[in-house]
């Protein structure tokens, strides 16, 4: 497998690759740079590129021009240090920079973009993919500007690349599209430059990242615009300007030079890039100071101000700018920026002209209609054009809506007996915020015909459509009696024109709709039969689950990871002791975990794992809990549909986040009186997923996918519509319980350090490798004695642990990592959840070579930084890694070699610790764990130890636990005591049991 890298070659992106073969030593001419010994030769490279991203129909010759680059790379005299992605360990002790000759392919920019999208496997390629994504974002938002440049053709011609600057013809000039990088974009561009791996900008010399990024961004932008504009801007061009316009599209960018046009275009670009410099003009809508009669006429104003672009809290009103006071902190030339900004804004908002009729403008006075027009039309336009806009708190929020009041009839109704069928009285009123308004008031508002009115001291936006809807609503039946279920549906689904802005309910409905049922319900104490003591918040969670179940409603338990969703769910099963079984669907990697947790916490529960070749649906009837995987649920759908279930539970419910997938459809198709989804990721941030998970838990309750999108998703995601967000919270709040660890009431319930063991399955590949190693090693151990035998035992242990980590770890063949290890799959899941919660984790392995394999893989899979600290790094680099991990706010992983990082480091930014493999020396493991758990840690730390079920890892763990309980005698001695076991005992320890295999 080739390890592909990309480096900017001045005129395009050059791809080169390292091969897995061991270095050869090609002959070199003295005095010239040596050939990179394990760089892929040109033909191999071109083949690989043709396979990855390039159009299969393009003929092989068009892949791009091959050339030999001279690159500064760290290494010894004999060979460069291999990149971490090769999985090879460097033998170079003290690397130095030297020039190496490297064969490379420079595809056309269009092809380059395709390769980047298709092959983001290494850090360098990933970085360029990020640059390309940035360019694409700029193009999509129209942050580009056409220019005429006379830059001479730079590099060798004849590569046949139509989009490339090298194709510049004799005409002497080219039409190009340049990115417009200002404001927040400029900040991001700077970060991209600072984050650029040295290997992206190396050449015969050290090239500055800023220049490299600018050149690449220019090239990517131009190519992307040309891809988007598939029709010419100008046909049959005659004048110079028209020929320039014609050259702005299509493959040929050449056109004759026109100095006048060129200068004008340059001046235009200057004006654009300068305008959005250090400060921006800001408009703040201010309410009339003394409110007059409803809809009363005047007194609104828009305050003009300047704002620092990089620090919006630095807000200086125009009045202060004109006063000539010393403006501390405001960069640039405030008066000029203010005037020029106002001049530009007036093009979008002509009303502004009125304010500029004075020498030193500081505000625009508006009447009510003008204020409404500013709110609805000017403000979004100005904001989109990069101006600052500040609106009153109520803007976009306080609109006319409905208020629902319900009352139960009987005193006993608050108990849980009647449930959803109970009839309650209801009344619907028109409301603004919490205030109801009468029909007379509504008629008065309609008569005033003004869009902004004051209702009981609160400003309300009133558009015609809403007013019509309100007038119609008061004519309908507004009181009566309905079952709780109907009202619930009404509340959740709502009305498109008139949102439900307030609910006043009692009884069951009140508990549900409060969104705080968990707090209102009486906590359920740990049920008898559960071999654990529930924490207070778990008791509340149990009460909530039980409450929903009894009502026949589905729930989503979305507590932070580590808060015990598993034990709470088991408690629910023990508590209700149902006649019919619960079906639990989870990813394969969690089956063993559920099985063990059930055995530990709920030993009386009859558990049947419905999975694998020997599964038999007949066993379901005799079980209380049936565990299966998403894949099996889909395959055995027909059989599972026949069973009368108590409930269906989906663990890691992200698995059904796409409602259209077969898995998601299968679990929805299994009938059950109540359902439960468990997820550790914050569902409320992913609205499409939220719908899909809710559709599983309570089918049909949120309405159709389309309606959900138009009513919630689009307003919230595209416009940050607060009212829609509130409505969504009201609609889903009753069914989603999410407690976070940072919540004070939860923290006080939690231990400071929580240790959990996670059991992972082996893949079939791992299992057969494991079996082979056991046979091979037991034979050798049997044939040896004394010190040799000890050595063999330790070697066997090491190799088995490597198999448990990953087949590629044992084989060391640089083969792919994805999908081959149960442990890695679990690690990825955990890491995803941790990062999704914006947290950081330390990941320890005792094998440096495994860390080196994991680092690039995880970085790519998770699309977040994965730092890697091992013994091969100089102190300076280690310090920088630690510093970054502690300081940088971005969630990330820190991979550490147990030996290199066990002591001394202070890594309190992490509140998760994962031990990928086991040292079986609690003292060492605890020491490592304490990197995160030490003074300065303000969060609770969660420690996870990954153990492959059914392997020596599980058995040694059990032995340690047993011995620990008896006496602490083995603790602290590492693995040596194992070497004293007899071969028969070893066979028992090493033996692979079937349950561990996926």
């Amino acid at each position: 497998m080739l390890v592909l890298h990309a480096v900017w070659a001045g005129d395009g992106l050059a791809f080169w690759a390292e091969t897995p073969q061991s270095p050869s030593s090609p002959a070199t001419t003295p005095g010239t740079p040596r050939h990179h010994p394990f760089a892929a030769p040109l033909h191999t490279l071109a083949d690989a590129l043709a396979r990855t991203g390039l159009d299969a129909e393009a003929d092989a010759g068009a892949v791009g021009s091959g050339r030999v680059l001279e690159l500064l790379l760290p290494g010894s005299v004999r060979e460069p240090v291999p990149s971490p992605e090769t999985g090879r360990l460097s033998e170079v002790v003290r690397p130095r920079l030297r020039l190496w000759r490297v064969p490379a392919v420079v595809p056309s920019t269009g092809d380059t973009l395709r390769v980047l999208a298709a092959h983001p496997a290494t850090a360098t390629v990933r970085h360029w993919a990020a640059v390309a994504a940035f360019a694409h974002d700029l193009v999509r938002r129209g942050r580009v500007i056409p220019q005429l440049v006379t830059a001479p053709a730079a590099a060798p011609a004849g590569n046949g690349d139509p989009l490339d600057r090298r194709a510049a013809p004799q005409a002497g000039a080219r039409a190009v599209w340049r990115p417009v990088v200002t404001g927040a974009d400029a900040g991001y561009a700077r970060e991209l430059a600072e984050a650029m791996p040295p290997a992206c900008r190396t050449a015969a010399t050290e090239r500055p990242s800023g220049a490299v990024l600018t050149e690449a961004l220019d090239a990517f932008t131009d190519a992307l615009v040309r891809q988007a504009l598939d029709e010419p801007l100008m046909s049959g061009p005659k004048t110079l300007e028209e020929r320039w316009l014609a050259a702005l599209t299509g493959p040929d960018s050449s056109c004759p030079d026109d100095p006048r046009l060129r200068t004008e275009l340059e001046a235009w670009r200057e004006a654009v890039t300068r305008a959005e410099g250090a400060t921006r003009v800001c408009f703040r809508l201010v309410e009339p100071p003394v409110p007059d009669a409803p809809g009363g006429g005047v007194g609104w104003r828009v305050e003009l101000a300047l704002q620092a672009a990089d620090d919006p809290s630095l807000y200086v009103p125009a009045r202060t700018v004109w006063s000539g006071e010393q403006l501390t902190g405001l960069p640039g030339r405030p008066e000029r920026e203010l005037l020029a900004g106002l001049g530009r804004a007036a093009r979008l908002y002509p009303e502004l002209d009125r304010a500029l009729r004075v020498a030193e403008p500081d505000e625009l006075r508006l009447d009510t209609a003008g204020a409404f027009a500013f709110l609805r039309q000017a403000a979004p336009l100005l904001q989109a054009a990069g101006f600052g806009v500040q609106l009153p708190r109520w803007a976009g929020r306080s609109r006319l809506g409905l208020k629902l009041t319900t009352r139960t009839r009987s005193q006993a109704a608050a108990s849980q007996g009647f449930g959803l069928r109970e009839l309650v009285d209801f009344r619907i009123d028109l409301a603004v915020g919490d205030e109801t308004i009468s029909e007379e008031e509504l008629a008065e508002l309609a008569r005033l015909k003004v869009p902004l009115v004051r209702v009981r001291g609160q400003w309300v936006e009133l558009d015609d459509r809403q007013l019509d809807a309100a007038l119609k609503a008061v004519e309908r039946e507004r009181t009566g009696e309905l079952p709780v279920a109907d009202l619930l549906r009404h509340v959740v689904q709502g009305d498109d024109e008139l949102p439900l802005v307030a609910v006043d309910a009692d009884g069951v409905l009140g508990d549900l709709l409060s969104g705080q049922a968990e707090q209102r319900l009486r906590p359920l104490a740990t049920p008898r039969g559960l071999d654990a003591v529930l924490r207070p918040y778990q008791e509340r969670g149990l009460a909530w689950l039980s409450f929903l179940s009894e009502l026949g409603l589905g729930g989503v338990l979305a507590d932070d990871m580590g808060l015990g969703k598993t034990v709470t769910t088991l408690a629910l099963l023990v508590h209700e002791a149902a006649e019919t079984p619960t079906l639990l669907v989870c990813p394969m990697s969690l089956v063993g975990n559920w099985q063990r947790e059930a055995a530990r916490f709920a030993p009386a529960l009859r558990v049947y794992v419905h999975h694998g070749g020997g599964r038999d649906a007949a066993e379901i009837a005799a079980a209380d809990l049936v565990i299966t995987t998403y894949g099996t649920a889909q395959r055995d759908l027909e059989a599972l549909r026949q069973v009368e279930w108590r409930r269906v539970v989906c663990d890691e419910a992200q698995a059904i986040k796409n409602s259209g997938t077969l898995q998601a459809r299968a679990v929805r198709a299994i009938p059950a009186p109540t359902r439960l989804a468990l997820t550790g990721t914050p569902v409320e941030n992913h609205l499409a997923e939220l719908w899909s998970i809710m559709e599983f838990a309570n089918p049909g309750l949120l309405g159709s996918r389309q309606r959900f999108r138009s009513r919630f998703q689009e307003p919230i995601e595209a416009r940050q519509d607060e009212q829609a967000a509130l409505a969504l919270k009201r609609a889903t709040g009753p069914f989603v319980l999410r407690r976070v660890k940072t919540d004070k009431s939860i923290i006080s319930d939690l231990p400071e350090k929580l240790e959990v063991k996670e059991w992972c399955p082996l893949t079939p590949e791992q299992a057969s490798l494991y079996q082979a190693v056991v046979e091979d090693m037991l034979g050798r151990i049997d044939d040896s004695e004394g010190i040799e035998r000890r050595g063999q035992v330790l070697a066997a242990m090491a190799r088995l642990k490597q198999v448990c980590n990953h087949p590629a770890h044992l084989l060391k063949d640089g083969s792919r990592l994805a999908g081959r290890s149960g442990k890695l799959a679990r690690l990825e899941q955990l890491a995803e959840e941790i990062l999704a919660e914006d947290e950081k984790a330390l990941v320890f392995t005792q094998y440096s070579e495994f860390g080196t394999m994991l680092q690039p893989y995880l970085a790519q899979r998770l699309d977040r930084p994965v730092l890697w600290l091992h013994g091969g790094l100089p102190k300076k680099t280690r310090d920088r890694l630690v510093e970054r991990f502690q300081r940088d706010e971005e969630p990330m992983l820190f991979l550490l070699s147990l030996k290199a990082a066990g002591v001394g480091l202070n890594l309190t930014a992490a509140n998760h610790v994962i031990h990928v493999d086991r040292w079986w020396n609690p003292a060492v493991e605890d020491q490592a764990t304490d990197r995160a758990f030490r003074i300065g840690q303000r969060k609770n730390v969660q420690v996870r130890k990954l153990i492959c079920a059914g392997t020596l890892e599980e058995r040694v763990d059990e032995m340690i636990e047993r011995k620990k309980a008896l006496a602490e005698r083995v603790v602290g001695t590492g693995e040596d005591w194992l070497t004293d076991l007899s071969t028969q005992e070893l066979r028992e320890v090493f033996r692979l049991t079937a349950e561990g295999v996926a």
Partner: protein
Amino acid sequence: MPIGRDGWYETTKPISVEGGIQARTRRGSIGSTWWSRRFIDILERVCDKGRLTRGRAYARKGQVLSIDLSPGLVRASVQGSRPKPYRVTIRIEAYGEERWASIEEAIAAQAVHRAKLLAGEMPPEIEEVFAALGIDLFPRDLDMDCSCPDWGFPCKHLSAVLYLLAESFDDDPFLVLAWRGRSREELLGSLADEPAAADLSGVEDVPFADRLADFYAPGATAHRPERRPSAAAPDLLLRVFPPPGDLARTLTPAYLRLGDS
């Protein structure tokens, strides 16, 4: 009227020019802003259609060699059919210090003028300022002269220069005021200096020598970009910063298509 078939002043073709000033627009009228239209309007009022057409053709072919604008006076040289280029002068009244002092005072009294001029526009309100002082910003008539022997007035050389002059006014409204005697710098004072644009050249790189052990890894601050919701129309840039000439007409549909990419 032509005197004869070989009359040198009438039907012979002009000597073609390399590197002359060319009008941007290929067809249709010239002058896209209201303030440059003012000049074209004067021209089109006094000049017959045939000469106007020839003047536009001259402007588009690049027959005008140079245009030089100073207070009260525009000098240009136009290549006609004779080897020696014709000299064209266009005069208007340049206002003296005293008048300008009152104009400046009036301009300073309303921010709209400075704001729009800084944003690259001639504020329509500025005509009121001049009118209030009983003077004109835009001339009612032009005092024009050309060294060509053409009897018609204004000749095609004059109209070619006026067309090009109007185009310059499109791009830089300050030129209109400069013709009347006040430069951009004089009018705006310290406001005239352009601020410098920011770029990436200031990024400080960690030297390779300190990155030998993580040569292939990202630097210390690889954040993911905050994806900003793109509520903005993709042609917004053109609306806030109008491109030179009437390019907006051609470019707007192109920018709108970028939004779909």
